[in-house]
């Protein structure tokens, strides 16, 4: 893996730590990650995109259990990963934790939880972000 700048990670911290999305105040659509403009309202939305905190609650649209991972995630296999549809609308790809892989199901209600995602070896940066767990 090529060495990456730390800035590449920290500029995404609001999204990855707190699930900050944005909303087009022209049509009301919500986006995650935040967009520069609304793909539907186009130029009318410029300067009218408003940051919003997403609830982190949603349901599983589809999932898989990863058995063969890239080097960064090899120590975590097997792990479930899913596409979650947030209650506000946007869909998001994340790991599902705090349950057995075989318990993950389509339409299962889940909520976000702040976790360690991976680290760059024993001396590199530790990356944090969202994972999802069954709704309590």
């Amino acid at each position, binding site marked *: 893996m090529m060495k990456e700048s730390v800035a590449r990670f920290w500029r995404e911290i609001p999204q*990855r730590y707190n699930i900050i999305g944005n909303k087009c105040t022209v049509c009301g659509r919500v986006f995650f990650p935040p967009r520069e403009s609304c793909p539907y309202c186009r130029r009318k939305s410029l300067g009218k995109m408003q940051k919003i905190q997403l609830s982190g609650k949603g349901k599983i649209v589809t999932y*898989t259990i990863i058995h*063969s991972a890239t080097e960064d995630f090899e120590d975590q296999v097997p792990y479930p*990963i899913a596409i979650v549809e947030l209650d506000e609308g946007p869909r998001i*790809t994340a790991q599902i934790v705090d349950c057995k892989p075989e318990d993950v199901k389509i339409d299962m209600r889940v909520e976000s939880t702040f976790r360690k995602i991976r680290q760059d070896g024993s001396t590199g940066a530790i990356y944090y972000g969202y994972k999802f767990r069954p709704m309590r």
Partner: protein
Amino acid sequence: MREVAVIGIGITKFGELWDKSFRQLIAEAGSKAIFDAGIEGKDIDALYIGSMSSGRFIGQEHVGALVADAAGFSHLHIPATRIEGACASGGLAVRQGYLSIASGVNDIVVVGGIEKMNDVAGASATETLATAADQEWEAFFGATFPGLYAMIATRHMHDYGTTKEQLAQVAVKNHANGAKNPYAQYKFEVTVEQVMAAVPVAHPLGLLDCSPVSDGAAAIVLCAMDKAKEFTDKPVKIIASGQASDTLPLHGRRDITTLDATVHAAKMAYKQANVTPKDIDVAEVHDCFTIAEICAIEDLGFVEKGKGGKAVEENITTLDGEIPVNTSGGLKAKGHPVGATGVAQIIEIVEQLRGEADKRQVEDARIGLAHNVGGSGATCVIHILEAI
């Protein structure tokens, strides 16, 4: 627009080719295509090279010029351009070559596709393939490339009752075809039981649901139709070229189990060719995973949405079926050197339309389609060809 024909084809063996370098592979495919067409270096107006990730696979970018040099054309100073669109790089290169002739800028171009994937370790190859996905919002969280197609499969099974056996039957069919293809990486048959019992990669996909990591190159010579007869008695006309894009991450798509890029590229291509899916006699589709072939035959309109699994079960897509799909063995058995794939698909269709596909020959094949996808469906390029 001018009409464009394929007048030459050349391909290397696909596989783990330890004794062959990137340069040797592309030079071999290119020279075969040039000999097949009966042209010389001075006849070539431009080169287009499809390569997904030479930078990560062999640490070499700038491969447009490298290929021209490796082919021995440096003194001719031929314009050489590398095209990238993940696993659709080869198909996109074909389209660029096609457009350059159709527009009247060029008369004869060589289109090459290549990937040398085995010069890095397996884990690095997996990581490089994952760059076709969204690095910030998919791969960062641990999604792998097979994982994305596995999520398409999970949802397809949920929505349409598609089974793991039906997925396995795609692999069985493509291996049966690959066994008849001298250039295929896997020239052996597999059974449904073997596919189902293979080690899991990303549930519900196992190792035999996945296309392999491959080395290989493919090249074709394209020529303005009005000049094609000077070189060959059997030109194969490109009657349509369609391309479309979609969201980079899978989670952004309108529908998880439909590749809208395929739907739109197909619509564009069918319209240009003035044909319907029923007119297609043979098709090469992008089966990077078994589920991908099921989605492809649905999204191309060969079968109704949701009926892809059933169609495979009913042998509609076998060599002697209603619409033979992946007669070459597909990415699954022929191999998938990513940048080469889109060009190799055209070669299979040309062989079928020339009537030179030997044991894989589809009887009376007149119209063929090649479908090449990038990533989990963010890019799609489709060509339709016709025997003259």
